[in-house]
């Protein structure tokens, strides 16, 4: 393991799916992830934000090698894992874990919570039964589950408890990288809060790096150090949390931020909003040039470049990457909407 290297490096990652021929629809290529590069720094929480169809889940699945990437590379602590066989991957699975969105379908209904959480230890032959029981008890306490929950089956647990079981399973091997795909979006607001607090505490205590995938901007703002915004298979903007919220550059990021609802009527009803026209194009046939151009409120300004040339993701100010023809070092895109007001730390 190379300590200087980022925890995870993704370079020019591409994932295409071949869509099957059906009646009335020809086959084609789904451009789910197209030439995406980013790195997850040591001990960092990176939020990957996008709407449905943006390719964020496909990207996550490629990173943990649940999908075979079409091209590009993935490095874990400097080591290329893109083409490792399942067998060679196995030892690395200790270091790279995933938490899934749906706490209902991602737990085996025939195993007790204790067995589910102890399973990684058993599979990796890291501990005998006795030690395992001790470790399971420890992590149960850490994620806020009572010892009595060890003997319960998933259906006997609430949604929040199930997600805690999922977290415990992912963390029992003390991985250095955690990929969390919408871990709270199936949960009620008050339960969400406790899982988000827990994830934050665990990350601070255990020091793992985390790629957190979500459609909810407010969640990443609470949790993440840096934010990457994805649209139709491409990263359109990457910057620190403060920078994204204070100074969003890409018109899509601006639209996304302006659509986020502030739970305060006095403020929410004052904001200048931009509502995007039309629907996201199909990843089967992404637009030429800039993929956002068909819905871009600034298309008049960026044409004709944006119709033909794909804007590269480039650094426009230190640590702030944007893929837009209107954004360059020293020149900003026009502000089209009000981002949610940033107020100082509360509570």
């Amino acid at each position, binding site marked *: 393991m190379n300590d200087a290297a980022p925890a995870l490096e993704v370079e020019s990652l591409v994932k295409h799916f071949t869509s099957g021929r059906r009646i009335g629809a020809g086959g084609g290529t789904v451009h789910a992830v197209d030439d995406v590069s980013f790195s997850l720094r040591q001990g960092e929480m990176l939020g990957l934000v996008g*709407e*449905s169809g943006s390719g964020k889940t496909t990207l996550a699945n490629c990173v943990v090698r649940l999908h075979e990437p079409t091209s590009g590379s993935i490095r874990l602590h400097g080591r290329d894992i893109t083409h490792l066989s399942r067998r060679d991957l196995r030892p690395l699975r200790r270091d790279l874990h995933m938490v899934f969105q749906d706490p209902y379908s991602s737990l085996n209904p025939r195993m007790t919570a204790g067995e589910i959480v102890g399973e990684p230890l058993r599979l990796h032959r890291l501990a005998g039964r006795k030690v395992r029981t001790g470790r399971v008890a420890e992590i149960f306490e850490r994620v806020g589950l009572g010892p009595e929950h060890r003997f319960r089956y998933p259906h006997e647990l*609430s949604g929040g408890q199930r997600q805690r079981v999922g977290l415990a399973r992912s963390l029992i091997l003390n991985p250095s990288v955690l990929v969390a795909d919408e871990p709270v979006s199936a949960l*009620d*607001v*008050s339960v*969400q*809060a*406790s899982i*988000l*607090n827990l994830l934050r505490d665990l990350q601070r205590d255990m020091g793992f790096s985390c790629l957190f995938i979500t*459609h*909810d*901007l*407010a*969640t990443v*703002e*609470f*949790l993440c150090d840096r934010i990457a915004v994805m649209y139709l298979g491409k990263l359109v903007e990457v910057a620190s949390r403060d920078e994204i*919220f204070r100074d969003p550059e890409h018109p899509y990021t601006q*639209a*996304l*931020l*302006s*659509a*986020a*609802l*502030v*739970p*305060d*009527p*006095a403020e*929410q*009803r004052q904001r200048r*909003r931009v*509502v*995007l026209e*039309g*629907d*996201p194009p199909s990843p089967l046939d992404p637009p030429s040039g800039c993929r956002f151009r068909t819905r871009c409120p600034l298309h008049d300004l960026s044409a004709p470049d944006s119709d033909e040339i794909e804007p590269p993701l480039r650094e426009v100010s230190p640590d702030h990457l944007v893929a837009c023809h209107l954004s360059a070092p020293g020149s900003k895109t026009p502000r089209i909407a009000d*981002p*949610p*007001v*940033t*107020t*100082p*730390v*509360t*509570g």
Partner: protein
Amino acid sequence: MSAEPLLEVSDLSVRFDTDEGPLQAVDRVSFTLAPREVLGIVGESGCGKSVTCMSLVRLLPETAAVSGSAVFDGVDLLALGPRRLRRVRGREISYIFQEPMTSLNPVFTVGDQIGEVVRRHLGLSRRAARQRAVELLQLVRIPAPERRVDEYPHQLSGGMRQRVMIAMALACDPKVLIADEPTTALDVTIQAGILDLMREIRERLGTAIVLVTHNLGVVADIADRVIVMYAGRKVEEAPAEELFAAPQHPYTVGLLGAIPRPGERQERLEEIPGRVPAAAAPLEHCVFADRCRYADETTRTQVPALRAVRRDHLVACFHPEADRAA
């Protein structure tokens, strides 16, 4: 709201007989809806918000025992016979469901489905119904309505389908629109468009809207007045701005503290310990008692009555925020 209410719900209770015994889903809920008003009903899953609304238009299964009254236009909806009910439902009061894909029939075109509503209720001819469908698609801002009217639901995106659902609901110019989590299945940028559309409908057609949601942001965006439900009861009711500025019930306070707020730096989110109680019969104490930090003997033995802490601001709590401030 001084205007005569359009809809007046009194002491509505709903109980289900389930395999695991009876379940009190809604417990003595009362509220009114004024003309042109947007009333938000918020709460977490299982709080009874959807059941409340479904009982108004009698969409609940036979196993539901509904009591109380819901007076609309001088008649009690809960006591209507099937024929008169059909005349009200879909025509005077319409309903929009959360999942636009499963609520549309996949084998009929959009035009057929919207057309069916006006043909049934208003007796329009096939041709006139199609014309009306095109107008309605235009009203809900679907581009190229002449073409879209002949398309099937699978050819439309999620946002478009929800617009079609809204078009169907508006077909007979209803006085009340009940929208049950209308934007929950949609992306945020699409959600913004649907909320704008609902606002416009209220402005242009004067339709009163009951908006059921778990999302406090949606309520903050569009509701005039808000009801907070918890475990089948109405625990708080206030004008939207006031509810967010000065919440009274500890549950409302907790809920507001639990959501990550865009544009704000939060060190911690507030957690509400414990779980929602599932009751077989109406509880004879405060429903929030076992999760409430202010719970005491009174809370555990008596049902708090709704009381006005300010004008139009009701709370069912023995220890509302207002008392602590004093």
